[in-house]
């Protein structure tokens, strides 16, 4: 049986966050003049933020979509929805293919466990068997460059070391759909270089990439299409060469 081709399809996707313990009226007054963030509303007595509204998106193998937009425009929310973590309030999300989400590097890392244990944990969550993890462990360890530190609890790591570990563990698994948030600028210059090489390889392997970033150079490097989000409303998907017009609009 041939697997269906890799694809992402969102139809009229609307996603709202309930906000608990907030007085919507006073919050609204404060936010009325600010252009960042989603739309605040009150329904059934609870305050809600509409983070994405009526978003339509069709991606197929080979598409590398860059997401741009102000802080709070819904980029991270869209990525989390595509990862399957957030359920839509309206509309549908359909994804064909293995999804790997590199959204928040430190989430899912257990600071009290050792580097090795964290790699194992991450691998199991990603669907690898213990045996497969053992096979990949040396390669991941080498890539992380952490050496003997891997046997120490992660809470003893510096921020850069934690980023190395998380990055090495998270990128060890092949995926059809790769979701990345704007954290890519982690670690020292050395690590930046090898991380970049690894990401390029990963992007080549992955059928679809969705990358949220403010970094124009980075977007040009990895993406062939862009979409702009503003207050949860998406622009049309356009080729990367229109990036400047899109940012200016």
């Amino acid at each position, binding site marked *: 049986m041939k*697997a*269906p081709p890799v694809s992402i399809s969102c139809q009229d996707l*609307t996603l709202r*966050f*309930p906000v*608990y313990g907030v007085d919507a009226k006073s919050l609204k007054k404060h936010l009325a003049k600010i252009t960042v963030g989603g739309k605040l509303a009150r329904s059934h007595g609870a305050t809600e933020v509409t983070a994405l509204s009526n978003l339509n998106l069709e991606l197929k193998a080979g598409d590398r979509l860059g997401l741009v937009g102000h802080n709070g425009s819904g980029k991270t929310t869209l990525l*989390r*929805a595509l*990862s*399957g*973590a*957030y*359920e*839509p*309030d*309206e*509309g*549908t*999300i*359909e*994804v*064909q*293919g*293995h*999804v*790997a*989400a590199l*959204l*928040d590097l*430190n*989430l*899912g*890392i*257990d600071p*009290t*466990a*050792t580097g090795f*244990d964290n790699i*194992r*944990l991450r691998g*199991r*969550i*990603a*669907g690898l068997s*213990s045996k497969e993890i053992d096979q990949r462990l040396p390669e991941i360890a080498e890539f992380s460059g952490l050496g003997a530190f891997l046997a120490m*609890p992660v809470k003893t790591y510096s921020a850069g070391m934690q980023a190395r570990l998380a990055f090495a563990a998270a990128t060890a*698994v*092949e*995926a*059809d759909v790769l979701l990345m948030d704007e954290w890519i600028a982690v670690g020292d210059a050395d690590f930046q270089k090898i991380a970049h090489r690894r990401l390029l390889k990963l992007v080549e392997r992955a059928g679809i990439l969705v990358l949220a970033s403010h970094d124009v150079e980075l977007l040009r490097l990895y993406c062939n299409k862009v979409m702009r989000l503003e207050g949860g409303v998406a622009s049309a998907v356009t080729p990367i060469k229109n990036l400047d017009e899109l940012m200016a609009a």
Partner: protein
Amino acid sequence: MDTATHMLRTGRRGALFEVQMALRDLRASLQRIDLAWSLAWHDVVSRYRGSILGPLWITISMGVMVLGIGLLWGEVFRVSVHDFIPFVALGIVFFGTVTGTINEGCDTFVQAAGMLSQTSLPMFTFVWRTVFRNLINLGHHLVIVLAVLVYFGSWRTANYPVAAMGLIFLVLNAAWLSMLVAIVSARFRDIPQIVQSITQAAAIMTPVFWPPDRIPARYHLILDLNPFYHLLQAVRAPLMGLGVAPHTYLFLAGMAVVGWALTFSLFANTRRRIVHYL
């Protein structure tokens, strides 16, 4: 990477649909039940990595506690150590499994926030993780149970199949309680303290450290209506060679059915929201 190669997420489509989605979550967690085991093992192993005795700590600290309480309180209640130590040992171990599963349930989703907000892993996986972690701890405590049974001779009269059945009732009920507090604690952050207070009160109200025959007959409702007493009795009595009252099973079966129905419908109604609570 998720093992699911096809993912479809939709908005609300009525109560029945939400129940189906909740069932799908349950099914997915059972298909990957080995993941819950791995997570539970990770918790146990990483907690004790770097310590000399490793998870044996669980066993030793429990052994010391059983011995101390057994000797001291046996004296206080003027009952023979011969009867009292097995009683206290079984009580502490199995009661600890129940309260441990419930207390740690408060953290189930809160602790998993990172994974729940960037993967499509089933939520039930994390419920099983907490349950399994407590079963692994119980496995370590069984060393003490065995030692006590053998040393005090009740291993010959113990009814193991009935005790195993009791353990199933215990786990079934502890699991829904654990999931219930997991959901509620995700939404309301002061719930863990309340849960702790309740389990602490239960430890005093339940014959864990004191013999049930010490209670005057007119106060027997304290036992008959105490779910913790029935949970404990279903496992402890057969291991001590005693019978289990039929109404204990009735109570536990009813509690499991009602409890799971309640918890599952709460889950079906809040499933979409839980990740946003965190």
